[in-house]
Protein backbone atom coordinates (compact mmCIF):
# COMPACT_ATOMS: atom_id res chain seq x y z
CA UNK A 1 0.00 0.00 0.00
CA UNK A 2 1.32 3.37 -0.93
CA UNK A 3 0.79 6.07 1.63
CA UNK A 4 1.33 9.49 0.19
CA UNK A 5 1.95 12.33 2.52
CA UNK A 6 -0.39 15.25 2.01
CA UNK A 7 1.22 18.29 0.54
CA UNK A 8 1.89 21.18 2.81
CA UNK A 9 -0.11 24.29 2.22
CA UNK A 10 1.87 26.94 0.48
CA UNK A 11 1.92 30.55 1.59
CA UNK A 12 -0.46 31.67 -1.16
CA UNK A 13 -3.11 29.16 -0.06
CA UNK A 14 -3.00 30.61 3.47
CA UNK A 15 -3.73 34.06 2.10
CA UNK A 16 -6.67 32.72 0.15
CA UNK A 17 -8.20 31.40 3.34
CA UNK A 18 -7.68 34.76 4.99
CA UNK A 19 -9.39 36.53 2.12
CA UNK A 20 -12.28 34.10 2.34
CA UNK A 21 -12.76 34.89 6.02
CA UNK A 22 -12.65 38.61 5.34
CA UNK A 23 -15.15 38.18 2.54
CA UNK A 24 -17.61 36.29 4.69
CA UNK A 25 -17.25 38.87 7.43
CA UNK A 26 -18.06 41.54 4.89
CA UNK A 27 -21.15 39.66 3.71
CA UNK A 28 -22.23 39.19 7.31
CA UNK A 29 -21.98 42.87 8.11
CA UNK A 30 -23.73 43.82 4.90
CA UNK A 31 -26.65 41.54 5.66
CA UNK A 32 -27.18 42.83 9.16
CA UNK A 33 -26.30 46.44 8.45
CA UNK A 34 -28.18 49.26 6.79
CA UNK A 35 -26.50 51.68 4.49
CA UNK A 36 -28.86 54.60 4.85
CA UNK A 37 -30.81 56.20 7.64
CA UNK A 38 -34.13 54.44 7.41
CA UNK A 39 -37.15 54.75 9.60
CA UNK A 40 -37.64 52.37 12.52
CA UNK A 41 -41.05 51.51 11.04
CA UNK A 42 -42.32 50.54 7.63
CA UNK A 43 -42.75 53.41 5.21
CA UNK A 44 -43.99 52.80 1.68
CA UNK A 45 -44.14 56.13 -0.10
CA UNK A 46 -47.10 56.93 -2.36
CA UNK A 47 -46.88 56.20 -6.06
CA UNK A 48 -46.63 59.10 -8.51
CA UNK A 49 -45.69 59.26 -12.16
CA UNK A 50 -44.72 62.91 -12.21
CA UNK A 51 -42.21 63.01 -9.37
CA UNK A 52 -38.91 64.75 -9.94
CA UNK A 53 -35.52 63.30 -9.24
CA UNK A 54 -34.64 63.37 -5.58
CA UNK A 55 -31.67 65.64 -4.96
CA UNK A 56 -29.12 64.72 -2.33
CA UNK A 57 -28.92 66.41 1.03
CA UNK A 58 -31.43 67.52 3.59
CA UNK A 59 -33.14 65.65 6.35
CA UNK A 60 -35.92 63.11 6.16
CA UNK A 61 -39.04 63.11 8.28
CA UNK A 62 -40.62 59.67 8.04
CA UNK A 63 -44.27 59.29 8.95
CA UNK A 64 -45.73 55.85 9.62
CA UNK A 65 -49.23 54.75 8.73
CA UNK A 66 -50.32 55.42 12.31
CA UNK A 67 -48.67 58.83 12.43
CA UNK A 68 -45.47 57.88 14.26
CA UNK A 69 -42.50 60.08 13.39
CA UNK A 70 -38.81 59.54 12.77
CA UNK A 71 -36.28 62.19 11.89
CA UNK A 72 -33.33 60.85 9.91
CA UNK A 73 -33.96 57.35 11.16
CA UNK A 74 -34.50 58.13 14.84
CA UNK A 75 -37.84 58.16 16.59
CA UNK A 76 -38.96 61.62 17.53
CA UNK A 77 -42.01 62.97 19.29
CA UNK A 78 -44.22 65.73 17.97
CA UNK A 79 -43.11 67.94 20.87
CA UNK A 80 -39.42 67.57 20.03
CA UNK A 81 -39.81 67.97 16.30
CA UNK A 82 -39.89 71.75 16.15
CA UNK A 83 -36.75 72.09 18.26
CA UNK A 84 -34.91 69.53 16.16
CA UNK A 85 -35.91 71.20 12.90
CA UNK A 86 -34.99 74.64 14.23
CA UNK A 87 -31.57 73.45 15.35
CA UNK A 88 -30.95 71.86 11.97
CA UNK A 89 -32.16 74.98 10.21
CA UNK A 90 -29.69 77.10 12.16
CA UNK A 91 -26.86 74.92 10.94
CA UNK A 92 -28.13 74.78 7.36
CA UNK A 93 -30.20 77.81 6.37
CA UNK A 94 -31.07 76.27 2.99
CA UNK A 95 -32.21 73.03 4.60
CA UNK A 96 -34.38 70.70 2.56
CA UNK A 97 -36.98 68.67 4.44
CA UNK A 98 -38.09 65.44 2.81
CA UNK A 99 -41.38 64.17 4.16
CA UNK A 100 -41.51 60.44 3.57
CA UNK A 101 -45.04 59.52 4.55
CA UNK A 102 -46.53 56.07 4.30
CA UNK A 103 -49.07 55.95 1.50
CA UNK A 104 -51.91 55.04 3.85
CA UNK A 105 -51.04 57.66 6.46
CA UNK A 106 -53.93 60.01 6.99
CA UNK A 107 -53.34 63.52 5.75
CA UNK A 108 -54.01 64.96 9.19
CA UNK A 109 -50.74 63.26 10.15
CA UNK A 110 -48.86 64.65 7.18
CA UNK A 111 -49.98 68.07 5.99
CA UNK A 112 -49.70 69.87 9.35
CA UNK A 113 -45.98 69.15 9.32
CA UNK A 114 -45.65 70.94 6.00
CA UNK A 115 -47.30 73.98 7.55
CA UNK A 116 -45.16 73.76 10.67
CA UNK A 117 -41.97 73.40 8.67
CA UNK A 118 -42.90 76.43 6.61
CA UNK A 119 -43.67 78.39 9.77
CA UNK A 120 -40.24 77.50 11.13
CA UNK A 121 -38.65 79.02 8.06
CA UNK A 122 -38.00 76.02 5.85
CA UNK A 123 -38.46 77.01 2.26
CA UNK A 124 -37.75 73.68 0.62
CA UNK A 125 -40.12 70.94 1.70
CA UNK A 126 -40.78 67.97 -0.56
CA UNK A 127 -42.98 64.90 -0.39
CA UNK A 128 -41.23 61.63 -1.16
CA UNK A 129 -42.94 59.48 -3.79
CA UNK A 130 -41.99 56.46 -5.82
CA UNK A 131 -42.65 55.79 -9.50
CA UNK A 132 -42.93 52.05 -8.97
CA UNK A 133 -46.08 50.20 -8.13
CA UNK A 134 -45.35 47.22 -5.92
CA UNK A 135 -48.76 45.58 -5.77
Amino acid at each position, binding site marked *: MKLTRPKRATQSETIVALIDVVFFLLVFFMLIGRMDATAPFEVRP*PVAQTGRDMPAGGITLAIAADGALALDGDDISVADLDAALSAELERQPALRLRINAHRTAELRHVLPYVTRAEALGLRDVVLVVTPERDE
Partner: protein
Amino acid sequence: MNLRRHAQSGPLISLVPMIDVMLILLVFFMVTSTYLNLDMIPAVRPSEDGTAQASSAPEATLMIRIGADGAMVLQGIALDPAALGQRLTLELAEEPLMQVLILPSGAAPTQSLISVMDAAALAGVQRLRVLRLEARP
Protein backbone atom coordinates in the same frame (compact mmCIF):
# COMPACT_ATOMS: atom_id res chain seq x y z
CA MET B 1 32.57 29.33 -11.60
CA ASN B 2 29.37 31.07 -10.71
CA LEU B 3 29.63 32.64 -7.24
CA ARG B 4 26.46 34.71 -7.38
CA ARG B 5 24.16 34.08 -4.51
CA HIS B 6 20.69 33.04 -5.47
CA ALA B 7 18.18 35.75 -4.76
CA GLN B 8 15.95 34.68 -1.91
CA SER B 9 12.40 34.49 -3.05
CA GLY B 10 9.97 36.02 -0.54
CA PRO B 11 6.53 34.65 0.15
CA LEU B 12 4.64 34.53 -3.08
CA ILE B 13 1.41 36.49 -2.96
CA SER B 14 -0.68 35.65 -5.91
CA LEU B 15 -3.07 38.29 -7.16
CA VAL B 16 -5.41 35.80 -8.75
CA PRO B 17 -7.34 34.96 -5.56
CA MET B 18 -7.65 38.64 -4.78
CA ILE B 19 -9.11 39.28 -8.18
CA ASP B 20 -11.50 36.37 -7.67
CA VAL B 21 -12.66 37.86 -4.40
CA MET B 22 -13.17 41.26 -5.95
CA LEU B 23 -15.22 39.77 -8.75
CA ILE B 24 -17.31 37.84 -6.26
CA LEU B 25 -17.84 41.04 -4.29
CA LEU B 26 -18.90 42.86 -7.41
CA VAL B 27 -21.39 40.17 -8.38
CA PHE B 28 -22.64 40.04 -4.82
CA PHE B 29 -23.33 43.77 -4.70
CA MET B 30 -24.97 43.72 -8.10
CA VAL B 31 -27.27 40.82 -7.28
CA THR B 32 -28.23 41.58 -3.70
CA SER B 33 -28.42 45.35 -3.71
CA THR B 34 -31.89 46.80 -3.71
CA TYR B 35 -32.16 50.38 -4.77
CA LEU B 36 -34.99 52.56 -3.58
CA ASN B 37 -36.32 54.46 -6.53
CA LEU B 38 -37.54 57.61 -4.88
CA ASP B 39 -38.74 60.84 -6.41
CA MET B 40 -40.13 63.96 -4.87
CA ILE B 41 -42.99 66.38 -5.28
CA PRO B 42 -42.44 69.89 -3.91
CA ALA B 43 -44.76 70.74 -1.03
CA VAL B 44 -43.28 74.15 -0.29
CA ARG B 45 -41.63 75.73 -3.24
CA PRO B 46 -38.55 77.92 -2.85
CA SER B 47 -39.38 81.61 -2.63
CA GLU B 48 -38.49 82.54 -6.19
CA ASP B 49 -41.17 80.18 -7.52
CA GLY B 50 -43.70 81.51 -5.05
CA THR B 51 -43.20 85.11 -6.03
CA ALA B 52 -43.49 84.22 -9.69
CA GLN B 53 -46.76 82.44 -9.07
CA ALA B 54 -48.18 85.25 -7.01
CA SER B 55 -47.40 87.84 -9.67
CA SER B 56 -50.34 86.96 -11.92
CA ALA B 57 -53.81 86.28 -10.67
CA PRO B 58 -55.56 83.12 -11.87
CA GLU B 59 -58.35 83.49 -14.36
CA ALA B 60 -60.50 80.71 -12.92
CA THR B 61 -60.43 78.27 -10.07
CA LEU B 62 -61.41 74.66 -9.88
CA MET B 63 -61.68 72.83 -6.59
CA ILE B 64 -61.11 69.12 -6.12
CA ARG B 65 -62.27 67.60 -2.85
CA ILE B 66 -60.76 64.44 -1.45
CA GLY B 67 -63.05 62.52 0.85
CA ALA B 68 -62.09 60.58 3.94
CA ASP B 69 -62.17 57.40 1.87
CA GLY B 70 -59.84 58.91 -0.71
CA ALA B 71 -62.58 59.57 -3.28
CA MET B 72 -61.81 62.49 -5.60
CA VAL B 73 -64.76 64.75 -6.18
CA LEU B 74 -64.84 67.45 -8.83
CA GLN B 75 -67.96 69.60 -9.03
CA GLY B 76 -69.96 67.00 -7.14
CA ILE B 77 -68.87 64.06 -9.28
CA ALA B 78 -66.61 61.34 -7.91
CA LEU B 79 -63.88 60.51 -10.39
CA ASP B 80 -60.98 58.12 -10.59
CA PRO B 81 -57.51 59.59 -11.29
CA ALA B 82 -57.68 58.82 -15.02
CA ALA B 83 -61.10 60.45 -15.43
CA LEU B 84 -59.98 63.36 -13.30
CA GLY B 85 -56.97 63.87 -15.54
CA GLN B 86 -59.16 63.88 -18.65
CA ARG B 87 -61.54 66.33 -17.06
CA LEU B 88 -58.71 68.63 -16.06
CA THR B 89 -57.27 68.47 -19.56
CA LEU B 90 -60.61 69.59 -21.00
CA GLU B 91 -60.92 72.39 -18.46
CA LEU B 92 -57.38 73.56 -19.16
CA ALA B 93 -58.06 73.64 -22.89
CA GLU B 94 -60.77 76.21 -22.20
CA GLU B 95 -58.87 78.09 -19.49
CA PRO B 96 -55.09 77.57 -19.63
CA LEU B 97 -54.43 79.78 -16.59
CA MET B 98 -56.89 77.96 -14.40
CA GLN B 99 -55.93 77.44 -10.79
CA VAL B 100 -56.70 74.08 -9.21
CA LEU B 101 -57.33 73.89 -5.50
CA ILE B 102 -57.25 70.61 -3.64
CA LEU B 103 -59.26 70.37 -0.45
CA PRO B 104 -58.44 67.07 1.21
CA SER B 105 -60.13 65.52 4.18
CA GLY B 106 -57.84 64.98 7.15
CA ALA B 107 -58.74 61.32 7.14
CA ALA B 108 -57.87 60.80 3.48
CA PRO B 109 -54.81 58.66 2.78
CA THR B 110 -51.67 60.35 1.52
CA GLN B 111 -51.84 58.32 -1.68
CA SER B 112 -55.10 60.00 -2.69
CA LEU B 113 -53.58 63.47 -2.46
CA ILE B 114 -50.54 62.39 -4.42
CA SER B 115 -52.80 60.78 -7.04
CA VAL B 116 -54.71 64.03 -7.49
CA MET B 117 -51.49 66.03 -7.72
CA ASP B 118 -50.19 63.47 -10.19
CA ALA B 119 -53.31 63.67 -12.36
CA ALA B 120 -53.15 67.46 -12.30
CA ALA B 121 -49.50 67.50 -13.27
CA LEU B 122 -50.13 65.03 -16.11
CA ALA B 123 -52.99 67.20 -17.34
CA GLY B 124 -50.65 70.19 -17.43
CA VAL B 125 -51.96 72.17 -14.48
CA GLN B 126 -49.46 74.90 -13.65
CA ARG B 127 -51.25 76.47 -10.70
CA LEU B 128 -51.92 73.87 -8.10
CA ARG B 129 -52.55 74.58 -4.45
CA VAL B 130 -53.32 72.26 -1.58
CA LEU B 131 -55.49 73.73 1.13
CA ARG B 132 -53.63 72.42 4.14
CA LEU B 133 -55.22 71.52 7.39
CA GLU B 134 -54.07 73.75 10.18
CA ALA B 135 -55.04 71.51 13.10
CA ARG B 136 -52.24 70.13 15.23
CA PRO B 137 -51.30 66.57 14.28
